[in-house]
């Protein structure tokens, strides 16, 4: 038997496979396809203090082996989440994380405080890397001082697992990861989407209402793996890797590069039960290659 469990800095995941924020709703949308309790973790949709309508339609463009999105954190606000959605999903037998976003440090802090009070939410993922909102979002994640400021502020009020989600739209992601670790993060997750754009040559207009959007999917995988590997060289906290994971081999690539766990995003749209296949595939790989524990894969690349 392969031991699939992962110790994420004190948080015990039943396996390394989580779902990525904004691509898995609140898990409920997937219940028809499989029992989401089998997952290592679920990252719920990007949540802000107040209700947000998100960006105007069109919000999506297909690109070579990838997609651009410009959803813009549409959500009903953290209080609605706590009051209405949380009671519906808190019984899932897996770790639920809330992906927390804000336009100001105060908003991040206030949102984190609300989530801190929810018993069945063992952690948050601080989204300092959303490229699809005008204020805040990615701006916090692209410089060390601003990243540190928001992490330190949230750390003061948030008592559970604090995962910080990094932006790939930076010159030196390792530097930011290190700064965020020093500021008190329990783990880092990466990558969020890369800023991209697509133009419809027939109409000569940008396809997205916001002109630019966030690129995800297999196209970004080589960049994401590289960033995970770079970050793994400098931080001591666990890394949660993502970006274009479509199957177990992709997931294993991230783990070999240094990720303790992985998140699956865009792939959920194409195969809603893909995460189960990835869990089974990691198990099969461990068996075939003689790993007793999935955690032995972490950083096992031979450079």
């Amino acid at each position, binding site marked *: 038997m392969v031991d699939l469990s992962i110790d994420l800095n004190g948080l015990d995941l039943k396996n390394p496979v989580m779902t990525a924020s*904004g*691509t*898995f*709703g609140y898990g409920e*949308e*997937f219940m*028809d*396809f499989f029992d989401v309790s089998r997952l290592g973790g679920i990252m719920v*949709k990007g949540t802000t203090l107040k209700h947000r*309508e*998100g960006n*105007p*339609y*069109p*919000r*999506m463009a*297909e*690109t*070579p*082996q*990838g*997609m651009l*999105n410009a*959803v813009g954190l*549409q959500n009903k606000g953290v209080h609605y989440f706590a009051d209405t959605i949380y009671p519906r999903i808190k019984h899932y037998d897996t770790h639920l994380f809330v992906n927390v976003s804000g336009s100001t440090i105060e908003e991040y802090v206030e949102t984190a405080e609300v989530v801190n009070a929810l018993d069945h939410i063992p952690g948050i993922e601080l989204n300092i890397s959303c490229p699809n909102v005008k204020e805040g979002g990615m701006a916090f994640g692209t410089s060390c001082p601003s990243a540190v400021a928001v992490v330190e502020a949230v750390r003061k009020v948030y008592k559970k697992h604090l995962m910080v989600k990094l932006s790939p739209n930076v010159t030196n992601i390792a530097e930011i990861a290190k700064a965020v670790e020093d500021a008190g993060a329990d783990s880092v997750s990466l990558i969020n989407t890369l800023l991209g754009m697509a133009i419809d040559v027939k109409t000569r207009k940008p396809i997205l209402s916001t002109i630019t959007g966030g690129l995800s*999917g*297999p196209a970004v995988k080589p960049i994401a793996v590289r960033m995970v590997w770079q970050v793994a060289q400098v931080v001591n906290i666990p890394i949660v890797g993502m970006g274009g994971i479509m199957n177990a081999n992709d997931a294993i690539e991230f783990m070999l590069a240094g990720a303790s766990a992985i998140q699956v995003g*865009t792939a*959920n*749209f*194409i*195969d*809603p*039960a893909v995460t189960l296949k990835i869990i089974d595939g990691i198990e099969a790989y461990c068996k075939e290659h003689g790993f007793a524990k999935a955690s032995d894969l972490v950083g096992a690349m031979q450079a």
Partner: protein
Amino acid sequence: MKKYVDDFKVIKNERLNHEYVVLTLQHPGKLPPMLPGQFVEVRVDNGPNTFLRRPISIHDIDEENNTMLLLVQEIGEGTQLMCALKEGDTCNMVYPLGNSFAMPDKPRVLLVGGGCGIAPLLFMGRRLKANGIEPQFLLGARTAEGLIALDAFKQLGTVHTTTEDGSVGTKGFVIHHPVMRTQTPDIDQIYTCGPEAMMKVVAKYAGNHNIKCQVSLENHMACGFGACLCCVAETLDGNKCTCTDGPVFDSTYLKW
């Protein structure tokens, strides 16, 4: 309504003309319940530029043979690949998705379609007929060649047609057809699916005459089942997903 992911088998590919194909797809077992207005998300794997699934309306259902019909218009690489499916090929689908046309309170029903938007109207017509309502269809196209699947519609009700070049039916757009130009139309309910410009004039006409009108949107989708929030339409209650809250909306609910 429970959703599934299944491999269907292509048992027939009928080409209607240079741009339209009707695919007959067979479920490996018993087809689960589905409603008119719902759609499927088809996986088209073998193209370098087709990454996401493609949403396609349920054109018709044959419960006895466990088959589903899709009416596909070739407009890009994904639909081209679909139209190239051959007998015996496999087609992976997530289904059934979305809400559905609501059954009418009153019997005088008009279904207005254009382009591939006629697809869900056939299934709706069949269910109406099964409920004792004989609908009227108003189908528009650019030319005679664009008026497809007429025989299937004729089995379910009266079929009116318009063509822009006047080669068949009334000359002009659907809105120019006599059935939509009377001052006191004998219609209680309209269902419409097609190009947005067409649906907007139909909805406006319906509004002017206090006719209930349901429109089916074809927004671009990444997932089709409520996970990505990419497919929103602006409604009186803010942004709503066309894949879960839609694709069918009351026309008055949309911010058009």
